[in-house]
């Protein structure tokens, strides 16, 4: 190590000249090493293959240990990352630089088009058996193929949205679980009337994925592929309906306007001033971590509906595992991620250690036999979750989700702060124009 480093430092001085001359760094895409601290993973034939795996799922190394024990020839090392965005940021930088990317990468579904567009994820269609696809719900599988013949990742977990509420407080206030959004609004009013500090929920301008899920439930799909061109349809009737609804409740003052995932929100979950949460199937873990003392008081139900006769839900969160274009061992990497996400033993471990809701249907029954510990009072938790998951609508993500999401943060942040219903609708327009302009400026084919 020490010797090679000396050489590297010398090489550094040499390469700087190249860089100064404006040397493009887009070459070396496949030839550069897997980039992990100079491991010598040269020849696949000689010795075991070392793979690095960037993931933010907790305890993933315990699941990977199972694999490593049984596969001495393919050893996987977990590099824990910050959740979601930072990992993608780093991966894209490494792709741009031509080296430094891991072999295997956890990616949220909404990031996959961005990653594919930056040539970060390898097409592993040839390495993944046909039987794998059939085990995933069609909507989920579409998220990793982007509607093409390629396969860019194997789905790991999904996040169908559900309604979580404090059953004890509901009982105290004589409230029924709202089944429509109209009932939800009435319930919000009742809750806030009972105690002006108490809310049924909050409109969080910092969680774009949450609003996306709500829009998906209403029937929106923000991007689309139209032949050889992208379309952007954020300002559809469906999204506007959702924005209008929440803007109305925030303006009325019966729904809070503060972001989620702040210490303040945690405190509100603890002291019972936030008594509801429109969240996803992974919510038990978050509630348990943030408000451990409220165990046994929460219950989960289906989302309130726009049309009670056609129940629907959206997705918030969920991720897949892909192989990067810089991996020198895509075959072995694909083998590992297929095992990770479809093998019964692996899926059981993922549920137990990482607390995820597996996307692979055949493995669900065994892995999800018990309700999450925090919801032991709700025996049929996963049964219900499965029924709800089946109602998820389809949603297409585009190659500039980050742009749309950061526009969401800014525009809805302003709207939530002003507590004005009209501004909520303006925010949707801002998101639409920002996202569309960005696609056009980047040179994507865009149909309008």
């Amino acid at each position: 190590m020490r010797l090679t480093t000396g050489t590297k430092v010398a090489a550094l001085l040499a390469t700087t000249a190249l860089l100064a001359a404006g040397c493009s760094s887009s070459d070396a895409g496949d030839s550069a090493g897997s980039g992990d601290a100079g491991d010598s993973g040269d020849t696949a034939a000689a010795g075991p293959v070392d793979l690095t795996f960037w993931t933010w799922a907790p305890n993933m190394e315990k699941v990977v240990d199972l694999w490593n024990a049984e596969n001495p020839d393919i050893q996987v090392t977990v590099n824990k990352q910050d959740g979601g965005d930072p990992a993608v940021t780093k991966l894209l930088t490494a792709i741009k630089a031509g080296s430094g990317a891991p072999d295997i990468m956890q990616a949220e579904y909404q990031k996959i088009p961005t990653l594919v567009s930056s040539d970060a994820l390898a097409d592993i269609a040839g390495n993944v058996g046909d039987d794998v696809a059939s085990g995933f719900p069609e909507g989920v599988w579409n998220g990793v193929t982007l509607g093409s013949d390629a396969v860019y990742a194997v789905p790991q977990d999904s996040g169908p949205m559900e309604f979580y509420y404090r059953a004890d407080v509901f009982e105290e206030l004589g409230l029924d679980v709202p089944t429509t959004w109209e009932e939800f609004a009435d319930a919000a009013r009742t809750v806030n009337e009972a105690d002006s500090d108490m809310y049924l929920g909050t409109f969080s301008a910092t969680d774009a994925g949450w609003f996306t899920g709500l829009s998906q439930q209403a029937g929106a799909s923000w991007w689309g592929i139209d032949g050889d061109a992208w379309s952007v349809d954020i300002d559809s009737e469906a999204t506007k309906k959702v924005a209008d609804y929440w803007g109305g409740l925030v303006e009325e003052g019966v729904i809070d306007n503060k972001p989620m995932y702040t210490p303040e929100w945690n405190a509100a979950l603890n002291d019972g001033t936030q008594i509801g949460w429109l969240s996803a199937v992974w919510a038990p873990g978050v509630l348990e971590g943030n408000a451990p003392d409220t165990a046994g008081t929460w219950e989960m139900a289906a989302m309130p509906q726009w049309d009670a006769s056609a129940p629907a839900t959206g997705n918030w969160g969920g991720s897949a595992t892909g192989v990067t274009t810089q991996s020198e061992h895509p075959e072995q990497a694909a083998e590992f991620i297929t095992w990770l996400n479809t093998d019964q033993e692996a899926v059981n471990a993922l549920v137990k250690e990482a607390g995820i809701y597996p996307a692979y249907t055949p493995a669900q029954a065994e892995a999800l036999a018990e309700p999450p510990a925090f919801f032991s009072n709700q025996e049929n938790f996963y049964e219900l979750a499965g029924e709800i998951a089946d109602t998820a609508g389809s949603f297409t993500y585009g190659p500039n989700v980050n742009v749309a999401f950061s526009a969401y943060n800014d525009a809805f942040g302003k709207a939530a702060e002003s507590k004005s219903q009209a501004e909520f609708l303006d925010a949707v327009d801002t998101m639409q124009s920002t996202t569309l302009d960005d696609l056009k400026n980047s040179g994507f084919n865009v149909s309008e």
Partner: protein
Amino acid sequence: MTTHAPTSAPRAGSRPAASSGTRRPTSPRPGRKADRGVGERPSAVSTGILLLGAAYCLLPVLWVVVASTKSGGELFSTFTFAPSTHLLDNVGDLNAYRDGLFWRWMLNTAIYAGVGAALSVIVSAMAGYALAKYRFRGKTVVFNLLLAGVLVPGVVLAIPQYLLLAQIGLTNTYWSVLLPSIISPYGIYLARIYAAASVPDEIVEAARTDGASEARTFAAIAVPMMLPGLVTVFLFQFVAIWNNFMLPYIMLGDDKLFPLTVGLSGLLNQGASQPALYTLVITGALLSIIPLVGLFLLLQRFWQVDLAAGGVKA
């Protein structure tokens, strides 16, 4: 400022960092103790204001101390400054996180900041000495260029530095954080001031007359004279590297190489489907401040940053 004094004579005696770095700043000036009591009543107002300032600065630190004694639930349910009894549990949890990874972050931080600052001192001292003690063509240009480095923020440099180091596969290594941390425009600036103030020209000249080489003059004569100032440069750069977030954040993918700032911020940013690990972060913040406080107390007397050596030309 009234007279243009020769470089060394009056200054040598008056600048603590220059020649009397051993003098403790808290100790009264000679002759002062004797005056105390004669028209020197302690002023309640001045003491009060100063203590108010101290309280303002200590408040968030006190908060960390109290908060780190709370369990996850208590952190959000009991009164902010009401302490609890879970400090050891929290330290235990932190210790258990990914097999004691936190201590690895501590060690990494010590390496990045310690080794980086030490190397930075050497480089800065040489450059500062050259700029202060030699007259040569291009001196002003070189100094201005080096100093212009402070104009470009680290956020801007992180990506090009990454692309550069990626060319030779040094990203995601200790070197990727260490090497860029060595060059410090502020360090060079300070070293130049210290060299100008603490190394009299006559002594350098005398050494040359005795036939000492330039390198020897620097190492054996100038460096010891600059030493108190160089300790300040070390501390300065130590804190700068310690505080740097962007560079390691971009360069490192393996969390075993992370420094504390990046590691702790990762515990906060777990993504939507995981709860942020507030108790771990707060306990970690407390533990990470302790060694730095120790370092400050230990080297307190070296914290004498003279940014404008021209201040004492009386």
